[in-house]
């Protein structure tokens, strides 16, 4: 899409954007002077961030922060319509990569940072146009009661329905990506040799487990619900979602073995009205003390290496990222996914309906 | 008893506190053209519905062809019916509509075709078989309804105001045709109408209904000329109803005029004398001459062509209507003229007030 002739771009970009963004354009009330508008996943996330990031930031700088929700398509539409209503984008790394490739983002001003030190940020998640504010991961979660006699501890175990029977779930493309990595791990591919993913091999492995798959989940809420309602007894699930259930005394558990780390990152629209404010907020958000606070509440992993020592032993045990992830987990390669999402989606849709 | 005989015995129907049909009994002979006549709300349509079986009577019996059909549902009664709105099926063509009563009885197709053709010929609709109701005029729809009612050769046909929706000319035409067809087929017809002229023209016998009761029953001429009560007298055509009272020597009218009636009596001290306008003779004069004569003054004269209608005021402010034939050499009276009205004792009746 990006390498197509650009001759007709401006007018088409305007036209298309206007069409799709029409409902989006009026979605947010007029901005206050100096305010930073930030896209967030919404929900309780906003409450945590307001307490630990936005309010202290306003107190320190006098700059107001307003979180708004927006889907991927809406972000895209805004950019195409030349009507960027947000400054800072707090979203999945893959989504940011899409925007980056479209030329929608401004570089992160690492040299102007005053609160955070660029060298403290984990190298894997520090890019020219996007910088991670936390990592989360997809783990193998299961029902402790169902697997009282021995729980699956690897994706090979998960694929072994004979030894570990029961209905299962994995993610659908509609959640962002399908769990092809886990299929390959189960099929014997070492975790440092996963990328580029062998899609055919992954789907062949998927064929074997598919009869046990009750559903491919498309939202985090659904995956949590299926596991807590015992619709499934095992499956891939985001660690934060699962931890909330465990903290509520659900008989669930997970293994850190072969977890897939995914990255949430910050990016700044190059056409944003308040680029300076957005840069400041990104800088503020990533400092060790702040990161430690919101990571603790969200059960996510800090990206600032200096934040880990600020967490208690118990908290570190729950958080993805850091040293343990380096040993037992792997980073999802968003670049590969970004390059192949179209193709995989098509193959996946066909495979689903076989 | 023959197939066409109909009888109701003590039939009563109530809706809540209101008695719609009150103890109605009647017997209709096979082949008779019988009319239920009455104003709206008099119970005639309910009586017909009880006959048809759409309405169950609270008391009494319904006998059709001598059999007790009181508990039999409509489809078991084997009646032909023409409905007020024709109730022609819009999704069926003419042939399909007429064939309906036969088709539901699973009559063989070939026989249906013959009988439908016969019925359509009878109502002069041959050639209209494939038309749909929406392509027909009101009169044609009426004929379809008629053909459908007779196609199964029922001994009894019920008709509920079948001509109500037609204009006057067409109505007259259809009256003749219905009568003609029923006579030809020998069918018993029970006909409901509120149109007294229609009832008089078509019927062998008429039952006049009032408040759910039969006020009088008899051949048209009898009910017209010898009404049993003031309601029947006034409902059928024009009637003069003069106040009458008993005195020492006999019956006295307005101004003490002597009245002699060929029939009827006054049940009490006071009542009415019934006399049709066309039975009154009118001549110039100023004083009564013997019984059944009244002197008066012409208040109003209307020229109607073959008759002249006079409104004559007599003693005590009573007004009589008199229809005088516009015969050869008739002298017309003008408003204000003094006239003398006379009539024959056998043309008038005494009725309860």
């Amino acid at each position: 899409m990006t390498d197509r002739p650009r001759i007709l771009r401006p007018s088409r970009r305007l036209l298309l954007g206007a069409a799709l963004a029409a409902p989006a354009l009026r979605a947010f009330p007029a901005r206050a002077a100096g305010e930073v508008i930030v896209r967030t996943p919404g929900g309780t996330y906003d409450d945590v961030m307001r307490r630990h990031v936005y309010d202290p930031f306003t107190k320190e700088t006098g700059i107001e922060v307003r979180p708004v929700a927006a889907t991927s398509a809406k972000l895209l539409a805004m950019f195409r319509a030349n009507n960027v209503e947000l400054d800072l984008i707090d979203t999945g790394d893959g989504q940011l990569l899409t925007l980056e490739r479209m030329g929608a983002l401004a570089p992160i001003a690492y040299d102007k940072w005053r609160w955070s030190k660029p060298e403290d940020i984990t190298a894997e998640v520090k890019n020219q146009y996007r910088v991670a504010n936390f990592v989360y991961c997809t783990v193998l979660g299961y029902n402790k009661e169902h697997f009282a006699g021995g729980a699956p501890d690897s994706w090979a175990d998960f694929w072994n329905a004979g030894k570990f029977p029961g209905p299962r779930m994995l993610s659908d493309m509609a959640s962002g990506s399908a769990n092809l990595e886990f299929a390959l791990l189960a099929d014997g591919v070492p975790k440092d040799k996963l990328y580029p993913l062998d899609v055919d091999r992954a789907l062949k492995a998927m064929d074997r487990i598919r009869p046990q798959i009750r559903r491919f989940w498309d939202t985090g809420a659904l995956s949590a619900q299926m596991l807590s309602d015992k619709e499934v007894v095992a499956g891939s699930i985001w660690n934060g979602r699962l931890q909330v259930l465990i903290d509520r005394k659900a008989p669930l558990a997970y293994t850190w073995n072969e977890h897939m780390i995914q990255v949430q990152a910050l990016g700044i629209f190059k056409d944003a009205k308040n680029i300076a404010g957005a840069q400041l907020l990104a800088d503020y958000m990533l400092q060790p003390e702040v990161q430690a606070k919101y990571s603790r509440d969200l059960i996510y992993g800090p990206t600032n290496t200096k934040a880990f020592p600020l967490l208690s032993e118990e908290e570190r045990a729950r958080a993805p990222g850091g040293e343990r992830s380096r040993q037992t987990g792997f980073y999802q390669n968003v670049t590969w996914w970004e390059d192949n999402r179209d193709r995989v989606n098509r193959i996946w849709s066909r495979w689903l309906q076989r | 008893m023959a197939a066409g005989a109909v009888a109701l015995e003590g039939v009563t129907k109530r809706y809540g506190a209101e008695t719609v049909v009150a103890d109605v009994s009647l017997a209709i002979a096979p082949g008779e053209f019988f009319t239920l006549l009455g104003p709206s709300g008099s119970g005639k349509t309910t009586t017909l519905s009880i006959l048809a079986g759409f309405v169950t009577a609270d008391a009494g019996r319904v006998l059709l062809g001598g059999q007790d059909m009181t508990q039999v549902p409509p489809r078991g009664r084997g009646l032909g019916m023409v409905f007020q709105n024709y109730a022609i099926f819009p999704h069926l063509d003419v042939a399909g509509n007429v064939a309906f009563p036969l088709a539901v009885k699973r009559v063989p197709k070939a026989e249906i075709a013959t009988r439908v053709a016969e019925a359509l010929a009878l109502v002069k609709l041959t050639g209209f078989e494939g038309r749909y109701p929406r392509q027909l005029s009101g009169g044609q729809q009426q004929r379809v309804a008629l053909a459908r009612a007779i196609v199964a050769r029922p001994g009894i046909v019920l008709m509920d105001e079948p001509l109500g929706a037609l204009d006057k000319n067409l109505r007259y035409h259809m009256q003749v045709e219905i009568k003609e067809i029923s006579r030809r087929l020998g069918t018993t017809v029970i006909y409901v109408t509120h149109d007294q002229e229609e009832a008089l023209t078509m019927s062998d016998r008429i039952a006049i209904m009032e408040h759910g009761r039969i006020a009088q029953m008899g051949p048209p001429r009898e009910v017209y000329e010898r009404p049993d009560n003031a309601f029947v007298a006034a409902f059928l055509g024009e009637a003069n109803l003069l106040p009458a009272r008993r005195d020492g020597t006999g019956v006295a009218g307005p101004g003490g005029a002597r009245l002699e009636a060929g029939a009827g009596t006054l049940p009490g001290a006071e009542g009415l004398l019934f006399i049709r306008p066309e039975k009154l003779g009118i001549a110039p004069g100023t004083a009564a001459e013997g019984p059944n004569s009244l002197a008066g003054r012409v208040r109003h004269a209307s020229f109607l062509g073959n008759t002249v209608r006079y409104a004559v005021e007599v003693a005590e402010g009573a007004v009589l209507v008199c229809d005088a034939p516009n015969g050869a050499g008739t002298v017309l009276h003008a408003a204000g003229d003094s006239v003398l009205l006379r009539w024959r004792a056998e043309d008038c009746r005494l009725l309860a007030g």
Partner: protein
Amino acid sequence: MPLTLRATLLLLLPALLLLSGLFLLPIGWFLTASIAELGTWPEILEEAEAVLLSGAVGRSLLTTGWIGLVVTLLTLLLGYPVSYALSRVRGAAFTAILLCIVLPYFTSTIVRTYAWMVLLGRNGLINQILLGLGLVAEPVNLLYNRTGVIIGMTYVLLPYMVLTLYAAMKAVDQRLLQAAEGMGASPGQIFLRVFMPLTLHGVVAGLLITFILAIGFFVTPALMGGPGDVMVAMLIEREVEITQNWPSAALMTIVLLAVTLSLYAVYSRFAEPGEAVR
């Protein structure tokens, strides 16, 4: 009184403006601009072939059509008696039935669908009852499979069928039914020879409108379906949200729109007033 063409247009103008402003123009733009992004005509055709003949779309169309058909027939089967009852009662009973049918529409589709998930889950109410009565030994899978999609969609679409049928049944002249009875027809014959033919246009209209709505369904199959229950609208949503391949989404939209519009053309023929009804 028949309206002149001008008066008719004038009366329709506000609705037309609204529709074109909020629907036709945006969707027209979306389709043309997205597809124009593909480049020249040969490039567009090549992409169309790749997208539409990829197998996923074809299969999804079959799935969509099949689910739509089953759901539509089920709504007819369930809706016909309900509509009949609705057309025959008055007063409180009428209000009660109508409310039962329409009430779910005051809640969002997602809430309703979640309610179904509570009922139909492996440990849901229905399975607990079945297990409790000893009718089944293992929980029955009513959710996250084709059965779930069909139950959910039938429920959501039933009101459209019921109300369409109700309109047709209410228009049936009751005197025709009485006439048929008087002419010797049994209750079965009255239904088959009179009532059903007179409501047939309503049945056709109900089938078409329900089917048209069914094939555009997205939320219910996405929430209640199993791995293979991919309807076309879900594919389109993925292209828009996940891969952000709008040209591809536009091509699929055109296919779905074409199917819908051709069905609508059939529908408008049957919904023609004054033809079937007197």
